[in-house]
């Protein structure tokens, strides 16, 4: 469990994290979303005791991480930036990390095989691709079999097979009772993996809910209707609260009226309907909607392309 209480971090004049409060529960995968510069990495570093909060506090599994007696059993961490000496082999890197907690070569070899680096673990990390470096970082996070695991952009640089592997890894960890907290920019990926979400923008909390609740609360589901008599159907649906848009010769997109209502109205009027489906917004739509006011580094458009 990770408990973040009224957490703030200021660098000079710049407020990176501004009064965040949330709890990450064990047993489920929790995603951490926010636009670039929202303060995600800073928050993750404060959870791991690397950055010192300006105010507020963080507890990992009930206590302050920096006073933990067995840190590697409590928290496994992958940071976005590289954190491996390029001149050292993956095996020696992991051994050095593990030895602080009495972890030896057998466990190191186990995680090397687990992340699929068996053939290259003796080579110097400086020559690794982005994806391979990422696997070294993931191996380090898993090394101590921690109760809580925090990963900043774990799928960065991984191939599709690696992305799927991370997904099943995170779910398995959560099923085994771990607290799993990770950030990603890949919305479709997160929608498939995470059950809960923490969304922040400009250092403040925007949402703390399940993925479904977040999508439902921030966006409207619309209904797409296919009918040969779209003109008539349009007139029938012309009522307060409804928005109807023509999407093609025989297609309407309707907001503000449920599929059940549309079906009933069409039946009563004798209008044939060939297709009637609810289109839910994606996590990406919801995210864009929720964070549009807190985008720190937004592109301005494509006019000068």
């Amino acid at each position, binding site marked *: 469990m990770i408990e973040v209480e009224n957490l703030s971090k200021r660098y000079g004049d710049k407020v990176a994290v501004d009064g965040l409060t949330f709890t990450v529960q064990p047993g489920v995968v929790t995603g951490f979303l926010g636009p670039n510069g929202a303060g995600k990495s800073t928050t993750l*570093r404060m959870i*791991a*005791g*690397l*950055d*010192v909060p300006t105010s507020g506090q963080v507890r990992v599994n009930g206590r302050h*991480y*920096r*006073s*933990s*007696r*067995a*840190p*590697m*059993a409590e*928290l496994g*961490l992958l*940071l976005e*930036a*590289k*954190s*491996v*000496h*390029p*001149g*050292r*082999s993956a095996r*020696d890197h992991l*051994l*050095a*990390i*593990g*030895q*602080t*907690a*009495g*972890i030896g070569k057998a*466990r190191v070899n*186990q*995680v090397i*095989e*687990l*992340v*699929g680096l068996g053939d290259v673990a003796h080579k110097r990390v400086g020559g690794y691709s982005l994806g391979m470096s990422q*696997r070294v970082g993931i191996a*380090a996070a*898993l*090394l*101590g*079999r*921690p109760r809580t695991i925090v990963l900043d952009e774990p799928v960065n640089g991984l191939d599709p*097979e*690696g992305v799927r*592997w991370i997904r099943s*890894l995170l779910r*398995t*960890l959560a099923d*085994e*009772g*771990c607290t799993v907290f990770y950030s990603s920019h890949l919305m479709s990926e997160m929608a498939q993996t995470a059950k809960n979400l923490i969304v922040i923008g400009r250092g403040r909390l925007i949402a703390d809910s399940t993925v479904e609740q977040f999508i439902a609360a921030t966006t409207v589901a619309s209904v797409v209707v296919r009918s040969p008599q779209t003109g008539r159907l349009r007139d029938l649906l012309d009522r307060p609260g409804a928005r109807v848009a023509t999407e093609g010769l025989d297609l309407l997109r309707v907001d503000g009226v449920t599929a059940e209502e549309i079906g009933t109205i069409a039946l009563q009027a004798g209008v044939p309907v060939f297709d009637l489906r609810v289109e839910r917004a994606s996590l990406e739509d919801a995210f864009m909607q929720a964070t549009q006011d807190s985008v720190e580094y937004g592109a301005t458009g494509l006019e000068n392309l």
Partner: protein
Amino acid sequence: MATAAAAGVSRIPVAGNLTVTGVLRSEWTKLRSVRSTWWLLSTAVILTVGVAAFVSPAATSGQPAPYTLARSTEYGSLLSQLALLVLGVMVFTGEYQSGLIRASLSVVPRRLLLLWGKLGVFGAVALALSIATSVAAFALGELAQRARSGHPHAWFGDPQVTRIVLGAGLVLAVTGIFGLALGAIIRNTAAGLSTITAVFFVLPLVFRIALPASDQGFLRFLPSNAGGALWDAALSPTSMTPWTGFALLCGYTAALVAVAAWRLQHGDA
């Protein structure tokens, strides 16, 4: 990566408590597993011993015994000193520049343990290496000298010899720790190396050239000269006494270590 995720994540604990012994082991693994360590250490040994063997008889024949003795270890030891300073600086700056420091502190969140671990391992390696090197340098220098002149000058057991040979080892180990602490404070390899080179090698030279002799009294308080008093057999009237000089060098080093500890403990990683 296709292997079943479950294989490695069954929740039987594998990680024990964070211990000093663990951190020492970890730091030894770090030190031995990068090539630069071996390059610097072997360069230090080869240069020190090599220079001592060749310089001593050529440059110092006809001088009084203690002077010969000092020169044969001193020239070489200066080279070792440079190598150990570089290695010392890089113990911390290497971690900051690669980002490894974050991985290290995330598994050693009680941060001072990391400093003590690095200090212990590097200090032990530096001390063992520099004493072994200065013993070898002196022995080779003296043997080369005997081969040339046909009679012995000095040998182990002479109090002067003991002070100079062991002193060179002690001073080198402490200056290495000086470099380590400076690296922990500065956190950048290029800046750390420039600073250490300036303090130990450039400033003493510049002052000696630029200032009139009457104004050079303070030079004895520079870290390099304070430490040098312990292995310098040809003490000039202006030098500090050997052990006072060494104590001053230890004082400087302790002050830097204290600043490094404070900075490590209180700042962001």
